[in-house]
């Protein structure tokens, strides 16, 4: 039960980020969550959108370097130590987090965290056993 994330290579140049959102917006695609990882020269924009395949296509057509990655969305109890509980379980299981970012589900008020693990298969097996609630993509994609 994974979620598809679109990653875009962006040079640190004025207007490039706006160009990505313009291309996506013009194609009628809605962004549900995003994170920008940056270095001094370039950044990687990671996006969760309602139609990942279409986003991949329109960005490619516009000349961007794009890839699709499987990530895992986890529902986090919206209370103190909610996130900490999950991270400690991951730590005990020896699962390494490559990166993560969070957003709040507007309807239910739940916090959702997008995780990229080094070993996604193992994470998929272990997370349910640890009582961590995975989120299906349709729940994320439908606003």
């Amino acid at each position, binding site marked *: 039960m994974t979620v598809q994330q679109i*990653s875009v290579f962006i*040079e640190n140049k004025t207007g490039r980020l706006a160009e990505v959102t313009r291309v996506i917006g013009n194609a009628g695609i809605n962004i549900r969550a995003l994170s920008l990882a940056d*270095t001094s*020269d*370039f950044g*990687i924009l990671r996006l969760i959108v309602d139609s990942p395949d279409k986003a991949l296509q329109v960005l490619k057509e516009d000349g961007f*370097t*794009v890839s699709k990655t499987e990530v895992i969305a986890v529902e986090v109890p919206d209370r103190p130590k909610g996130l900490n509980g999950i991270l400690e379980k991951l730590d005990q299981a020896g699962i390494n987090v*490559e990166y993560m970012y969070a957003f709040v589900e507007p309807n239910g008020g739940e916090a959702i965290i997008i995780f*990229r693990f080094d070993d996604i298969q193992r994470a998929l097996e272990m997370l349910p056993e640890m009582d961590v609630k995975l989120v299906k993509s349709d729940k994320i994609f439908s606003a």
Partner: protein
Amino acid sequence: MIWNDEFETLPREAIESLQLKRLQQTVARVQATVPFYRQSFARAGVSAEMIRSLDDLRRLPFTLKQDMRDNYPYGLFAVPLEQIVRIHASSGTTGKPTVVGYTRRDIDTWAELMARSFVAAGASRGDVIHNAYGYGLFTGGLGAHYGAERIGASVIPMSGGNTKKQIMIMQDFGSTVLTCTPSYCLYLAEAAREENLDIRDFKLRVGIHGAEPWSEAMRQEIEEKLGIKAIDIYGLSEILGPGVGIECIEAQNGLHIWEDHFIPEIIDPETGEPLPPGEKGELVITTITKEGIPLIRYRTRDITRIIPEPCICGRTHVRLERISGRSDDMLIIRGVNVFPSQIESVLFNIEGVEPHYQLIVDREDNLDTLEVQVEVNERVFSDEIKVLQELSRKIRRDIKDLLGITCKVRLVEPKSLARSEGKAVRVIDKRKG
């Protein structure tokens, strides 16, 4: 095997005395028939009578590509047009083409030298030579064609392009020798794979590749992907066309330059002074048998060195090391000579990296800086920062290993580097002007 045993294995002294005699004749002829040379000799205070030894060659002024442009189209011809039986021209990427004319005897000499070259590459009568060099103003196609006929091989005049047909004919006609540029050779292999064919199953055994710079890494790739011996050939239209020099299949190490027709020199590209034997610099060639356009000390801009050691194949003509770059794109960065082609070979060896790159040279606090911009494609892109950072570290490390200089690697978006119609602009040197 050797095509012309008498001339290809002449003892050194015999080569040199033949060269001197022919040089004297050539210099006297251009002085008498080409106004450009009459004037340039007069300006330099030299004349044909002053050439008494081969060392006197260095007293003569250079001929530059610009001189050919200034005398466009026929100004450097040493015979009247009615004696010219063929006209070729270089592409002229930076303006008017460079025009060259051949007399009947020049065409005959060219065929002879290409015949020598084919045989040195291991081809012979009975081979089916698939000639995929372009026929036309470019010298590659016809140059190879006449040489292939001269040795009695069966030549297929394919010319360039039409890749699917090339592959079909190569397979159906049982081509054994392929002549084309090294990059087209790899393209053919790739195109064959797309049709579920493996060129290694064809009858090809030798490839003769030139007309553009290529590296040892590329040779290995060609030999592996096509299952052939890949031979480096050298030529330039101003001097003759293909067949000025070639590697022998025995050594595959350095290009024999046919010294009974050309005198090679290596000079310092900055000062124009001749360099001691074995040192690397710019190749200068004097033609000593050409009738249509004899050229005196023509600056090729190609960087190489002369390998003076005798070759295992038995030929006595000296070898040129594989061309490593062009003096007009040589950069001096913190005292180190750097050719864009060297950076290219580093990128070529990194799996998945596009050979689209640009070099930005600048100066900070009186120190030269080099930034290598490399386009990121989908094959090397990752959603993780550390993977891309490792990629740029690897490029930096490999460049440091090869050239001994540190640079900054900047990953850029695809197609962000300027593409020009012809040759790509690889270098932006901000230190100038």
